[in-house]
């Protein structure tokens, strides 16, 4: 499994399915400049059409067959169950290459991996070798990808090599490294480089570009005479501090380890660079566990965003933003991918998608074999409200939760139990039916999986529009309306007594003369 929060707040959120294709010998694949941040008004068209107006000038030799895949801001799942999650990790300032000599950005690399790779290892080689040849950077700098297939998960990190690189230099136009996550382990990348010491002789666990260490020496980021072993993250993307020392600003790393392996008592005071690459979780994680983890708000920890009066009378975790928690209200969408061995790829691969803030959203499965996406997943933007866009359905509910968060979130959680846990429970049945069809005719299985994925998503999106309506009515004007009895309760939702005290304390603080 991989998970990825596409957290931006102003970015494009639209998804697209790219069908498989056969290509004639000698044909080429055009490379476009794709900025994660650039958006266009819907009246001008959709991002994935408009990016084709920004041709980089590079066409690379096309492969005979490209695989089908689903993508949003990045490629997420292809027909071979190769799955990707992304995190920006940054790099040393002198490594950034925003010049046009760098032809490939991270979005394009993930799409090329989707088109060309049948395994995680192949995906890494595809991305790494193309970036070396044609240069990496331009819109992007240090990036990490979790690359999975049914058998392995790898952490792949890639960085530019500075703005003075040219293809004629004969040197690699990128530096990259990949480390495999041990089979019974989990790893996390909260926008921080995670690969430390590397053993390039251990081919089963490490892959890297030929300049992985030499570039660090050349640029003065590592001194082999220091007596210290080379550390990828310390050389190329050092991060100072800990969860505690930054008052929670970089607490997600500690929090992840604390959630999955509480028995190991990881400490928030431990510098982030000293955390292990991966850890064996105390218990095996389910897909629901991973979804729940994406909703984590660090409640009950030293970084609790509703501690004291921070969340207001209704414990709203969105008021206090000093702490960066795992759940992200700025999420465009979040993915959880599953690559499952023992099933044909079109059935084994699932990308679960939730729109907007994870706590008020619902994960919906899209099978790898689906040949189309729900229409509502492919449209919409941040600045124009439309009921045609799935994303706005979830924002609509999210908006109506904010007023009385501690109460309204319970309504959302009930809906999640119906639609999200319900979908998870149905997966074995869907798998079995798809497998039956697959054995007769794979194309029928694909039609079935497409139908299920779209119908389920349409049902959930409709349910969230209705949920938003219901919340508006139920908590209207901060009273509690009972639609069945056609009554309302003027005393509820009631601000708690501690809040009344806090109000009085604030008055005293601000108006000392009246004390």
């Amino acid at each position, binding site marked *: 499994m991989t998970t990825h929060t596409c957290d931006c707040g102003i970015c494009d959120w639209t998804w697209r399915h790219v069908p498989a294709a056969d290509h004639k010998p000698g044909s080429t694949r055009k490379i476009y400049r794709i900025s994660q941040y650039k958006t266009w008004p819907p009246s001008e068209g959709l991002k994935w059409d408009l990016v084709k107006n920004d041709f980089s000038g590079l066409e690379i030799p096309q492969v005979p067959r490209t695989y089908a895949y689903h993508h949003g801001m990045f490629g997420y799942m292809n027909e071979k169950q190769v799955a990707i999650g992304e995190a920006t990790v940054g790099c040393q300032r002198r490594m950034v290459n925003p010049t046009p*000599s760098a032809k490939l950005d991270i979005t394009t690399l993930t799409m090329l991996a989707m088109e060309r790779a049948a395994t995680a290892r192949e995906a890494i080689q595809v991305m790494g070798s193309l970036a070396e040849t044609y240069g990496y950077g331009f819109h992007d700098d240090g990036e990490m990808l979790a690359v999975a297939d049914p058998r392995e998960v790898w952490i792949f990190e890639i960085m530019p090599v500075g703005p003075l690189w040219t293809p004629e230099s004969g040197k690699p136009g990128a530096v990259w490294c990949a480390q495999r996550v041990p089979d019974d382990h989990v790893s996390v990348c909260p926008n921080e480089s995670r690969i430390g010491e590397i053993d390039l002789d251990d081919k089963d666990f490490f892959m890297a570009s030929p300049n992985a260490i030499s570039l660090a020496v050349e640029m003065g980021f590592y001194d082999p005479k220091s007596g210290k072993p080379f550390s990828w993250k310390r050389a190329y993307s050092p991060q100072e501090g800990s969860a505690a020392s930054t008052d929670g600003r970089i607490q997600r790393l500690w929090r992840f380890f604390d959630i999955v392996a509480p028995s190991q008592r990881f400490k928030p005071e431990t510098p982030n660079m000293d955390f292990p690459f991966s850890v064996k979780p105390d218990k095996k994680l389910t897909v629901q566990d991973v979804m729940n983890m994406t909703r984590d708000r660090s409640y009950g920890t030293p970084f609790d965003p509703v501690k004291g009066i921070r969340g207001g009378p209704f414990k709203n975790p969105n008021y206090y933003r000093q702490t960066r928690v795992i759940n992200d209200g700025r999420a465009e969408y979040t993915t959880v991918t599953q690559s499952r061995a023992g099933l044909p790829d079109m059935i084994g691969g699932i990308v679960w998608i939730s729109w907007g803030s994870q706590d008020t959203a619902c994960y919906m499965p899209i099978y790898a074999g689906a040949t189309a996406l729900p229409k509502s997943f492919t449209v919409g933007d941040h600045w124009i409200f439309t009921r045609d866009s799935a994303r706005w359905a979830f924002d609509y509910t999210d908006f109506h939760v904010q007023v009385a968060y501690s109460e309204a979130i319970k309504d959302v959680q009930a809906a999640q139990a119906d639609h999200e846990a319900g979908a998870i429970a149905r997966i074995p049945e869907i798998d079995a039916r798809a497998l039956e069809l697959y054995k007769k005719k794979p194309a029928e299985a694909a039609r079935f999986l497409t139908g299920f994925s779209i119908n389920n998503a349409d049902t959930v999106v409709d349910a969230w529009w209705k949920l938003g309506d219901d919340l508006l009515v139920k908590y209207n004007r901060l009273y509690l309306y009972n639609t069945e009895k056609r009554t309302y309760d003027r005393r509820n939702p009631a601000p708690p007594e501690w809040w009344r005290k806090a109000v009085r304390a604030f008055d005293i603080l601000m108006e000392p003369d009246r004390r």
Partner: protein
Amino acid sequence: MRPRARTLFFLAALTLPLALAGQQVPKAGLPALTTSAGQSADVTTLNIVFDEAGIGYDYCDVPTVEMLADGVGLGGRESGPGFHIEVLSDLDRFPEGTPFKAVVFAIGASLKGMGASGLTLEAEEARLRKLIDYCRQNRIFVMAVHIGGESKRGAPGSDNERMIDAVAPLADYIVVTKDSNKDGRFTKIAQDKKIPLTEIEYALGLVDIAKKVFQ
């Protein structure tokens, strides 16, 4: 041997700047200040070019006229949130307070960068106008550089084009990568305003130019 010799010649040709016919690379004095017009990451490239060329410089992403007037050392100011300063001028040759003789602008608009510096597009334009007016009044050489390429140009009236308008027509020298000038916009500015212009293939080409300008 012969094929290798041809290859070497080819590589050398690619890195040579493509100056407009009849125009020489102008000379400017040190000390120099590097800065951004639009707060894109291209100013980092500019600084790396100066490092590579072995030219000392002071850098500030959002200098004011007062800072420019304070000369080398930028009045002893230090970096803070959304505000970066580096003093890398040769202090033996140019002690703190030495007036700048050149300002080099890396043109490129970035809403992300301007946001981080607490600037709006209008505020950035106004800041640039004041800086260039000061340079004009005090005979400070203004060099405008656009190395972001076609993709970072934008349509007429776009953020990046406004940054170009704010700096390039008032510069003493313009250097652009070829694909930043595919539409000939910089060539037209240079011809209209009689400003020397040099086209380069890659940012790497700016290293030699910087050496020539500031040698």
